[in-house]
């Protein structure tokens, strides 16, 4: 027995030290070795911000700095991950893009982001459209968590070839003249539907895109007032946008698609719809979906109702970043006039810097894919007439609830009244 007793003892010691060693190893899995002056800045964005050339420039101006960008394709997934990492207080990177719809959400925890006002943003705020700067500033005005990149000035993209088949004018000036208001847009749709005579081709892609465009034109606020009270039921702008959209659905001119779904994406190529609400960044998206073969099929006219905004982003520095000073410098660099211009030339994202709207590089920009449409002029016109719209912290879940209800009306599952009641009820639940 004696020898037997010895072995387990040694074994115990051995295993004990192994377990300890394992824990110790796990504990010190820290940063990889970096030189004293070297640093890696991690930038997280969604989609394509068109910053490659700017990164090269910044790395050249700041020796020892290396920039690594991670781009997530899906905005929903990006928002979820960013929320998780900000809430957890680590892993968010040094510089992050925040989309317009999410910025109010992150303003709730403004302390988790660097306040750009402490780094001189107030002194140069005329660099951005006033409302753009306000959107990323807390309601007491004390903290600004993001610097504006682009805005989604709104236009209307249309299929030139399908318009021709339906016997409608195809010239962008004439097309714009067809629909000064949304009622005119619906009337044009009915004319189109009659002319095209094919029930596989519809005038509009989806009720939700028309609805959101109208809603974002209605100024001030939508589902939440500026004190963050849910006002879906009392704000006439919401119900008006709803009713007008239902009129469109009743006219039978909607392809009833869900935006960003496979079918919707395929529709750009297959021609299942002839018009789509078109913020500046959408031009790149259409080109990608419709492919080279679709060049010249699409053109751009002005949006009914005059102007509007869909999307646009900010750059923010999480306080969990270990290289805050350099990240702040990069944020200013990317959102500067030169930075925004570079991104615009690269991927077509419309600058949020109003001084650029007079710049010939923006104003005179044309897009070959869209029959050389003067995109600079069209989108600048849409952006300049914008009114700032306040979106509440719970805007996204409420918007999701209303869009679901609207789609169920569109698909014929519910009447407009039932759908509206569902929208209000679900919105109240979602607002918590």
């Amino acid at each position, binding site marked *: 027995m004696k020898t037997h*007793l010895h072995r*387990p*003892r040694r*074994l*115990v010691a051995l*295993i*004990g030290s192994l*377990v300890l060693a394992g824990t110790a190893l796990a504990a010190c899995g820290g940063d990889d070795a970096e030189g004293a002056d070297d640093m890696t800045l991690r930038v997280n964005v969604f989609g394509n911000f068109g910053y490659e050339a700017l990164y090269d420039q910044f790395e050249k101006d700041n020796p020892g700095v290396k920039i690594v960008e991670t781009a997530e394709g899906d905005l*929903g997934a990006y*928002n*979820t991950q960013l*929320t*998780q990492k*900000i*809430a957890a207080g680590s892993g968010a990177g040094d510089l992050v893009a925040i989309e317009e719809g999410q910025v109010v*959400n*992150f303003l*709730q*925890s403004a302390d*988790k982001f660097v306040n750009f006002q402490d780094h001189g943003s107030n002194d140069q705020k005329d660099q951005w459209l006033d409302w753009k700067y306000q959107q990323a500033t807390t309601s007491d005005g004390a903290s600004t968590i993001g610097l504006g990149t682009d805005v989604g000035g709104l236009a209307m993209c249309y299929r030139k070839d399908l318009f021709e088949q339906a016997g409608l004018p195809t010239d962008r000036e004439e097309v714009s003249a067809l629909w000064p208001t949304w009622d005119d847009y619906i009337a044009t749709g009915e004319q189109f539907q009659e002319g095209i005579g094919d029930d*596989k081709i519809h005038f509009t892609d989806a009720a*939700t895109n028309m609805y959101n465009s109208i809603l974002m034109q209605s100024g001030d606020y939508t589902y939440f007032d500026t004190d963050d009270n849910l006002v879906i039921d009392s704000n006439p702008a919401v119900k008006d946008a709803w009713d007008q959209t239902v009129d469109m659905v009743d006219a039978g001119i909607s392809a009833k*698609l*869900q*935006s*960003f*779904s*496979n*079918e*919707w994406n*395929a529709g750009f190529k*297959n021609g*299942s719809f002839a018009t789509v609400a078109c913020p500046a960044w959408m031009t790149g998206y259409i080109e990608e979906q419709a492919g080279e073969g679709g060049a010249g099929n699409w053109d751009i006219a002005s949006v009914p109702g005059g102007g509007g905004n869909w999307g646009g982003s900010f750059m923010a520095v999480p306080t969990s970043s270990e290289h805050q000073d350099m990240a702040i410098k990069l944020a200013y660099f990317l959102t500067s006039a030169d930075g925004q211009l570079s991104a615009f030339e690269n991927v077509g994202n419309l600058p949020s810097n109003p001084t650029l709207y007079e710049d010939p590089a923006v104003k005179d920009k044309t897009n070959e894919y869209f029959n050389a449409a003067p995109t600079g002029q069209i989108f600048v016109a849409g952006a300049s007439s914008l009114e700032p719209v306040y979106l509440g*912290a*719970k805007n*996204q*879940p409420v918007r*999701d609830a209303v*869009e*679901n*209800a609207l*789609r*169920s009306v569109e*698909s014929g*599952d*519910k009447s407009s009244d039932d759908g509206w009641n*569902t929208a209000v009820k679900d919105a109240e*639940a*979602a607002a*918590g």
Partner: protein
Amino acid sequence: MDHTRPAVRRVRGSRGSTAEQLAGYSFISPFFILFAIFGLFPILFTFWVSLHDWSLLGDRSWTGLANYTELVGDERFWTALVNTLGIFVLATVPQLLMALALAQLLNRRLRGLTFWRMGVLLPNITSVAAVGIIFTLLFARDFGLVNWLLGFVGVENIDWQAHRWSSWLAISVMVDWRWTGYNALIFLAALQAVPKDLYEAASIDGASQFRQFWSVTIPMLRPTIIFVTLISTIGGIQLFTEPLLFNSGTNAISGGNTHQFQTLTMYLYEKAFVGQEFGYASTIAWVMVLVIALVAGINALMLRRIRTAV
């Protein structure tokens, strides 16, 4: 009706010395340490969170059991529960029957036996995201293969996502595609462990093929059936990826316009990361544990009848 079990022989004093015990504990400790960190702690922490009104980015406050009472009156929760159970039954019952039939086929002498046996596992090792995307394309409204085929027998294009029954069916097909082969292989292993002399004896007694299957195969497979059903139950109630990918486009997590195919995990995820209601989402997680335990219990009760039926 055999209730005797082999008696466990206990030897007095075989527990060993303290040192030996310590050695034993340290051998098994890695699992328990890891489980405590990655299993037990999150479970308890989730319960703690579920007692709060806990906004992911904003404030948090203690609310006791208020989340649980709210959940009982939450229509969305009940819809999700019915969807989850509905898809679970619609997917699992045919799946296990098909798996059993497939196992029977694979248990015969066939040409290229290994090929077939490996083949049934292929869908399972395919990435679930790929399966989701392909099937969503197959079930697409305007350009989908399924609607195209149905068109030949005069069926109008079906909007598979739009209706409850059609979305459940399509999702069940996805689940079955992935898991039938896997379960078939487990059944196959069990089938091969059934002693041949039992079948010989049954044939001598004049039992038909069906009678042999019912009275010999099924009772011998009982532990396997229990295992497979339990695993399918846990997987089925946690169903997430297939219905999520089935709804391509914006707001996919809501599982359709009227939430007609939103499962419990999707609802949980929506509440946590879109609605930012971390406390409420944790409550859903805890209620899901109860649901799984309940369904597993019902399964166990039903499966006990297999034995008593003999």
